[in-house]
């Protein structure tokens, strides 16, 4: 999925954020995000040029030869009193340089890390989000394959006996969740090679675990909720950038009541047209994989939400896959699920209703909207 762009942007901008954090550099005096894209030259890094053989659990760990990488957990949860929650915990790795010279100081590292934590309290109609940075040194942040572990400071996902344990705390929220993969890793794109533009190497290695069973506890403003639900993991690593003519993306990860899981991203071009590299996958309950592309998926914005900070996001959608007779309406559980950090984007829990071949279909999932606001990827 297209978080890749977010990522590249984010981590390159990190440097700038550090410079002007409290100074509120005026846009005119500083940079345009577009200038920063590709700010770290891609020379010297490994690139996703051809399909590769994935191997697990090794590939759950990090791939430091590539410039960017992420572990993207989202999920929809509910407690017994039918309080609904959405959560997002994502770790981004960004290499500041292709090589990592041997340093005497344990602080020396070419790896930088960023993490976002978000929680949607549907019944309380509140949205919380946080951001952290660290270098990949001194045990402060990193990712390991076996046992699986990805962490930044005290936010972590750690493999324990039979499950992955998610732990994250910030201000007045705290998540303590057990994650149990219910599906095997699903290779996206062409056997895991996800082409983002026509330029060779402008591609990523991309797999998902579309369904993880979740149980655990969410603490929120002093109240605790025992929750269960479903989570989705996206893993992607690459050394690529947003194409010059690309403006943003709309990304869907939907878990449906018939047991199938749908991922689709639509790449938008600056001229308003849809990039042909838009793509997706439908994983049937029986394990069948159906590839989707811009021609097979029909998307239409139904409702726009004006951000108080400026910009409008299309938060309600019609998603149709005519060849599979799937007709869905995607509705956010809360309108304001915008993250305003290093960059600004909308990422939130959604409800799904509709039908497939005449049978009613429900579900929940996550929607990511990028390139709609200033300080986001569009330029």
């Amino acid at each position, binding site marked *: 999925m297209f978080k890749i762009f977010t990522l590249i942007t984010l981590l390159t901008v990190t440097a700038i954020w550090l410079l002007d954090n409290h*100074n509120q550099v005026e846009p005119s005096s500083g940079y345009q995000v577009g200038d920063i894209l590709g*700010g770290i030259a891609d020379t010297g890094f490994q690139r996703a040029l051809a399909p590769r053989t994935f191997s697990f659990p090794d590939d759950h760990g990090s791939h430091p030869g590539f410039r960017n990488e992420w572990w993207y957990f989202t999920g929809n949860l509910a407690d017994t009193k039918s309080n609904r929650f959405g959560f997002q915990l994502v770790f981004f790795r960004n290499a*500041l340089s292709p090589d990592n010279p041997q340093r*005497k*100081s344990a*602080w020396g590292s070419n790896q930088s890390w960023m993490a976002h934590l978000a929680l949607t309290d549907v019944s309380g109609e509140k949205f919380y989000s946080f951001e*952290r940075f660290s270098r990949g040194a*001194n045990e402060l942040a990193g990712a390991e394959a076996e046992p699986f572990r990805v962490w930044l400071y*005290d936010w972590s996902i750690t493999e324990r006996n039979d499950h992955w344990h998610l732990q994250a705390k910030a201000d007045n929220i705290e998540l303590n969740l057990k994650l149990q993969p219910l599906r095997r890793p699903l290779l996206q794109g062409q056997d895991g090679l996800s082409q983002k533009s026509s330029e060779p190497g402008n591609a990523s290695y991309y797999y998902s675990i579309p369904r993880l069973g979740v149980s655990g506890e969410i603490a929120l403003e002093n109240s605790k909720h025992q929750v269960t639900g479903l989570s989705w993991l996206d893993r992607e690593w690459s050394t690529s950038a947003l194409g010059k003519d690309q403006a943003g993306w709309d990304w869907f990860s939907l878990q449906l009541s018939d047991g199938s899981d749908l991922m689709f991203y639509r790449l938008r071009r600056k001229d308003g047209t849809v990039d042909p590299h838009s793509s997706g996958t439908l994983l049937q309950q029986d394990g069948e994989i159906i590839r989707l592309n811009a021609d097979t998926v029909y998307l239409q914005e139904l409702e726009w939400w004006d951000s108080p900070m400026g910009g409008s996001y299309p938060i309600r959608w019609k998603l149709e896959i005519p060849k599979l007779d799937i007709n869905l309406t995607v509705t956010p559980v809360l309108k304001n699920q915008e993250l305003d950090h290093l960059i600004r984007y909308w990422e939130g829990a959604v409800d799904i209703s509709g039908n497939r071949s005449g049978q009613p279909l429900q579900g929940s999932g996550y929607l990511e909207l990028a390139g709609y606001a200033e300080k986001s990827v569009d330029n």
Partner: protein
Amino acid sequence: MVKTTLWRASLQHLRLHPWQLVLAILGIALGVAVVVAVDLANDSARRAFDLSAQAVTGKASHQIVAGPNGIPDSLYTQLRRQYGIDKSAPVVSGHVILDDNTLELIGIDPFAEGDFRNLLDFTTDGEQTDLIRQLLTTPGAIVMSQELTESLGLSAGDRIELIIGGEKRPALLIGSYIPSPTRAAIFKNILITDIASAQELLQREGRLTRIDLILDDALDIDSILSILPAGTRLLETASRNLTMRGMTQSFHLNLTAMSLLALVVGMFLIYNSISFSVLQRRELFGNLRVLGATRRDIFSLILGEGLLIGAAGTIAGLALGIVLAQQLIHLVTRTINDLYFVLTVSKLFLQTSGLIKGALMGIIATMIAVLIPAFEAAFSSPRSVQNRSRIEDRTKQLRLPLTWLGLGCCAVAGSLLIADDSLMFGFVALFIFILGCSLLTPTLVTWMCQATTRLFGPSIGVSGRMAVHGVHTSLSRTGVAIAALSIAISATVGVGVMVDSFRGSVQQWLESTLRGDIYISPDQPSGTGNQARLKPEISNMIEQLPGIAEISRGRQTELHTAGTITQLFAIHMAAKSYGSVELLQGDPETVWSKFDREQAVLISEPYAYRHKLAVGDKLQLDTDHGRHSFEIAGIYRDYGSEHGVVSMRMSLYRQHWNDNSIYSMGLYLKPGVDPEQLIGRIHNLVGDIQELRIRSNRTLHQTSLETFDRTFVITNVLRLLAICVAFVGILSALLSLQLEKARELAIMRATGFTPRQVWGVTLGQTGFMGLISGLLAIPLGLILALVLVFVINQRAFGWSMELLIPGGVLIEALLLALISALLAGVYPAWRMAKTPPTMALREE
């Protein structure tokens, strides 16, 4: 505006006597200038400290600090990962030398900085967006402010060589930035680098200097306290900065007291000028009273005049003070750098509070000085129009009460000294004592005049007798002038004797302490803490050299605890070193066996004074293995540190602290070995491995005394300023006196005195006044010296010293008094001698 004519009558008088006006204004201006200058300089130094502390510690509410070894990296990771203390930032810092400039190298983790300082608050352009990435990924990459790069003639991309703990380390200047104007002064002396590079450059891998924290949750504080490893401490930033600031408190207080002295002398001057101008106008005031002007009219008239003069003098003083402060700030900063810590800023901060304070003091001092003459004029009966000697009579009547008051002041000062042992009270007592002495002046002057007439009457001739008599009969003016001059001179005597005593004691101490022939330590600026150490290969090399009989090895560190900074000195003593320690307390028989074998330490005199410790007491220190109690085996003389030193044997230190490094070596040579030759050999041997300070006994002795002298430059400057004020004072007093005597002198001329004889009488009189001032100043100065040496110094610094009275200082004082009085007499004498007798006589 009522009674403008009254005002006109008064102001017209001032206009007709401009020199009087100028001198009065000058007196207050000089006094205010000195006070303002010292205040501004002190304040600037403090503000500089605050600003750099603020820039360096940022918004941190707490800091974790540690002993000589610093803090393990893992503590920071633990805080972040286990306790989720997200407002925390690691810092590795140290002092480095770049092209002879001492700079602070600050290593930060840019990822953790957001909540703390804006060290990197520069404006960005395309190239600078890359700076931090380079900082993180290029070993040895540093950035500095553009001002610094310009002053060093460097530009981005230059390879530079830093000298750190005497070793040369290559670094790369990757860029410069323009800090916001308010912070420019601080960043002129700061190098910023990534924490990894800082550890590598300072050779402190795995160790942090401190961890800055923003803690507002008591729970967080508790959990941090529970995991702090031995040897580390959690301190509140504010209190830590206060502790650092407090180190210089005594120094600042001493300067302030010196500056107040100048103001007091200035007050005498004002008093003198105003009371003379009142005296001159007693006829005018008498007439006004006859015409129906009330006492209040006269009183407010004179007060108003004083206010005017005070305001003019104060304004001039403020301007002069700012100019003077520009010079003083360098002296103040230099002394702080020599004695306390590196203060990287020497910029004058013009604080309005300081200026307002100076202005108020100027006005108030003037008002106090004017009050007495104003009272005098308002309350003397209008009949004094006819009665010219009335005021002199009154002065003579007042002499006895004044004497009693003066004696009372001296008694109060004495009991204050005994009753309270704070430094502040010491100064208060000193000022009361000075006031008392000035009140005694009229009586003392009278006695001296009478004695002179009786003893030398016949031999000094008529002019001589007239001169002496003149001093006596015009006591109301001569008394004040003599008091002002003698106070200024006594201050120079007191301070001079104190400095000489101090220097003598230091010299003696250096001689007994510096027994080794050669001293070796890494080349690092003084006052930078002692993170530097001798490289082991160097100490090995030196040990192998022939010609060395014995070696002592030392290691200095600072232990930061809440509220205090303790200097710890671990030493492995050569056999010959034992004799160099002058014990002030402790049984010489057992001290050394305790020091060598038990859990015992020696503490220096100031340390004992400050912490109220005595031999046999227990001293708690935070070691790398937790808090440990040490017995105090003895107290020794040491002038090296104002805040005191705790000394322990090296093996004891290593038992409690995981630190095997050595900071300094003292070499005792075999007989017949030439130290200078050996120094040459060591230089050759060491070569480029480490920049060392290798000094022979003689050189070290010399440089120590040079440092000492440097720190007293500012004292001497202030002393000189006080004399300047006094000189103006005596000049104005004499001018008034002589001009008032114009008629008398005219009569003398009329009766046949030659101009030369008039010169003689005038100069004789001023010279006599100078002589009296000098003679009075000597005992007063010696008492001041006693108080300074045995009270003020003891209280301010905890040092005891031998009183040393150099004859030179006394003769100097006498000459100073005499010469300034004679100089002040030249103009009036010239004026008097030149005036034709008819001019002066015509007035009646």
